[in-house]
């Protein structure tokens, strides 16, 4: 079935009253769980799995897709308003988003995230419909050496969040790298830095660390320094995006989407790397006035780009699931088990054997995307009003929210101890001007880079030249070097030319 015929069949199935109802229910549930940290789409779909005994396959998958896309929309809300990212893909959104909210621009931040999600969701879904099988064949050509090179490239983005002092920034980065080491080493199965605590065997959850540093640390710091802070109610400011907000967001939406989708398709890609790269790109490409806003009052480009990248990557994750039957995320794994409870074996033949179901599912992604933007834009005004709560109450609320969310991740007291332990470290980091973002970046990239490097070296029998003799890897490494030293060399050259 060619894509056009498939889509028209899919839409004719998806646009029935019952299926639209499932899509709406899914979008609503998904937005709700996206807003709550700790409860993600994977857990929600797992809780909904028993409906597969009762509901026909098409309806169930439309519901699941609605939840999946909805959670991606909702994930940015708490990042922006409360500096409390609900999942790893929205951590970068919090960097600029929370600063925008603090300077009275929560409305435009939420709106650009919602519209950006729509743009990215649509581009991602178009990608699934027309490019899926092609992109996945390309993605399979990338091996661990290329993944390692990609992560090196992402490490360059740390330089954008290091802050004023490179020493402090790098200290933060290494703290993150150390946290990333905790847990069982994949290659050997041996525990590292776990100190005999079974909860640490699986490593420290990166969302927990982000919440601890961004939300808990900040709150504790404010409580500590409260006498210095002016007791002011925050301004909510204008809700809608201005013409200039819109103009500044369009580029990042599209760049983020085109960056995010291929990363989502990569079997070991995920949503974190493209959000980092998008943030770095937008920061570098921004106009001089916008550059001022980065890291200070919050730049809208830094929300629009990463949020679009996150959503496009999330759409991309469905490609290996639908074309090869490979679940490359927790949510995809659960959707695959739902396929199995209908007696459908997802694999490379899924499109041929279950064409109608797959195309209906893809069509329902377009439907969900439209529903979500319609559902979410009016909510922006409502959400932004949360900031009218006076600061002491608001921050107390954030602490409660962060605590409940973290307990929800795994119902473990160890996680709560970690949350507050790392939160106190975050408070001192804030006090002594250590940036917190490099911790999270180190924690995400460190373990991925380490495993990719060791896989590559296992395959090359310990030959380090594999990173420069494989063309893909060499190209990406060259890019990384250019991104790192290029601006400096250019600066020196420009000054020479002036002098």
């Amino acid at each position, binding site marked *: 079935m060619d894509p056009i015929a498939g889509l028209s069949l899919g839409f004719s199935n998806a646009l029935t009253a019952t299926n639209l109802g499932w899509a709406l229910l899914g979008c609503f549930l998904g937005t709700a769980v996206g807003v709550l940290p700790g409860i993600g789409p994977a857990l929600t779909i797992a809780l909904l799995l028993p409906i597969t005994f009762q509901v026909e396959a098409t309806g169930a998958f439309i519901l699941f897709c609605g939840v999946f896309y909805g959670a991606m929309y909702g994930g940015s809300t708490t990042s922006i308003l409360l500096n409390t990212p609900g999942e790893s893909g929205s951590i970068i959104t919090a960097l600029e988003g929370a600063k925008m909210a603090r300077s009275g621009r929560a409305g435009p931040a939420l709106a650009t995230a919602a519209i950006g999600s729509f743009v990215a969701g649509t581009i991602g879904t178009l990608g699934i419909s027309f490019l899926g099988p092609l992109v996945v064949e390309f993605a399979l050509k990338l091996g661990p050496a290329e993944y390692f090179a990609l992560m090196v490239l992402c490490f360059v983005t740390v330089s954008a969040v290091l802050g004023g002092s490179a020493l402090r920034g790098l200290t933060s980065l290494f703290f993150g790298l150390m946290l990333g080491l905790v847990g069982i080493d994949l290659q050997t199965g041996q525990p590292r830095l776990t100190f*005999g605590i079974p909860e640490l065997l699986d490593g420290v959850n990166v969302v927990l660390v982000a919440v601890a540093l961004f939300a808990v640390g900040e709150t504790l710091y404010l409580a500590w320094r409260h006498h210095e802070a002016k007791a002011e109610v925050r301004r909510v400011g204008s809700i809608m995006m201005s013409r200039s907000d819109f103009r500044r967001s369009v580029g990042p939406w599209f760049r983020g989407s085109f960056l995010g989708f291929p990363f989502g398709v990569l079997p070991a890609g995920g949503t974190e790397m493209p959000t980092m790269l998008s943030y770095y790109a937008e920061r570098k490409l921004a106009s001089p006035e916008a550059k001022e806003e980065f890291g200070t009052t919050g730049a809208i480009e830094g929300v629009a780009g990463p949020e679009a990248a996150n959503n496009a990557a999330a759409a991309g994750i469905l490609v290996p699931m639908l074309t090869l039957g490979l679940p490359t995320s927790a949510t995809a794994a659960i959707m695959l088990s739902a396929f199995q409870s209908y007696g459908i*074996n997802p694999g490379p*033949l899924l499109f041929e054997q279950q064409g109608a179901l797959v195309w209906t599912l893809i069509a329902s992604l377009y439907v969900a995307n439209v529903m979500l933007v319609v559902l979410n834009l009016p909510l922006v005004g409502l959400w932004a009003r949360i900031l009218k709560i006076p600061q002491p109450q608001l921050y107390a609320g954030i602490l409660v929210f962060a605590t409940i969310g973290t307990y929800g*991740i795994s119902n473990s007291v160890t996680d709560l101890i970690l949350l507050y332990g790392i939160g106190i470290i975050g408070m001192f980091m804030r006090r002594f001007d250590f940036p917190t973002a490099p911790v999270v970046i180190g924690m995400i990239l460190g373990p991925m880079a380490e495993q990719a490097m060791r896989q590559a070296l296992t395959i090359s029998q310990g030959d380090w030249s594999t990173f420069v003799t494989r063309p893909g890897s060499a190209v990406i490494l060259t890019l990384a070097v250019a991104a790192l030293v290029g601006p400096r060399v250019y600066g020196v050259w420009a000054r020479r030319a002036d002098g």
Partner: protein
Amino acid sequence: MRRRGLLLATGGLLAAPALAQPMLPQLSIFVPANPGGGWDGLARGIEQVVRGEGLVGRVGLEHVAGAAGTVGLPRFVTQRRARADSLFVGGTALVGAAITNRSPLTLADLPPVARLTEEAGVVVAPMGQGHFPDIAALLEALRADPGAVPVSGAGGGTPDHVTLGLIVQALGRNAIEARLAAFPGGGAAQAAVVGGQVRAAIGGWGEYEQLIRAGRLRALATTGAERIDPAVPTLREAGIAVVVTNWRGVFGAPGVRPDAMIALMQAMHERPAWGALLRERGWADAFLTGPAFAAFLETDRVQTRAVLEELGLA
């Protein structure tokens, strides 16, 4: 990522009309892994049959994932001690993980109830020119230099790694020479072999079946005692005295005599619905209970430890 879900299915509403008084009013199944994996699949299969057949009134599932079950095991032991309605799902991967992680608790700390299913592994190679055409070619290359044949699998110390170690051992070399490129679960290991990044991969038959059927991968050999696919030889037929299967079973809560649970599993196993489920999922029936299951567990642990020691992981 660890996720825990508590799921209380409303059995009364969904169950078929109960034929008789249920054997247990409620059953709480503890899954030490994420939803979507093999242990979760077994738990949901048990739920479907015991509830559908009216053997149990209400079934709840709880997930505590991480480190091949060694995060969930201590949680189960502390939270469910002496709880007669609790079942713990475990299997091969947990036997090895408890050894490599130096876990203070192992499956030996739980009263064994029943082994339910087993699944053989498969050795696959990428399609196309220059890749291994059959198992003999792969064994030849491994015999010459195991380090020169990168093989992907699910992680150090997992059943995939143990299988590779046993093959290398059977070829007269030291297991530690085996080169496993470990990829995290969820498709990365499969992607590496489909894309030709590694020269072979070892994994569960179920993980690779669809890729083999679609002609994306070549099945070189299966690791069970008998053929799964009539066209694919077993390792034993290829002259390698290695039989590895991934078993899955259930255990009771510490401090509870497992008799009632054993009776429940026996009743479930006798129902035609269980047989139908096994066929639908492609699981082999490996029902074993009582002292025979306990003896099997002991042998399994001793053998796994021996291989892991030779791999330098225990």
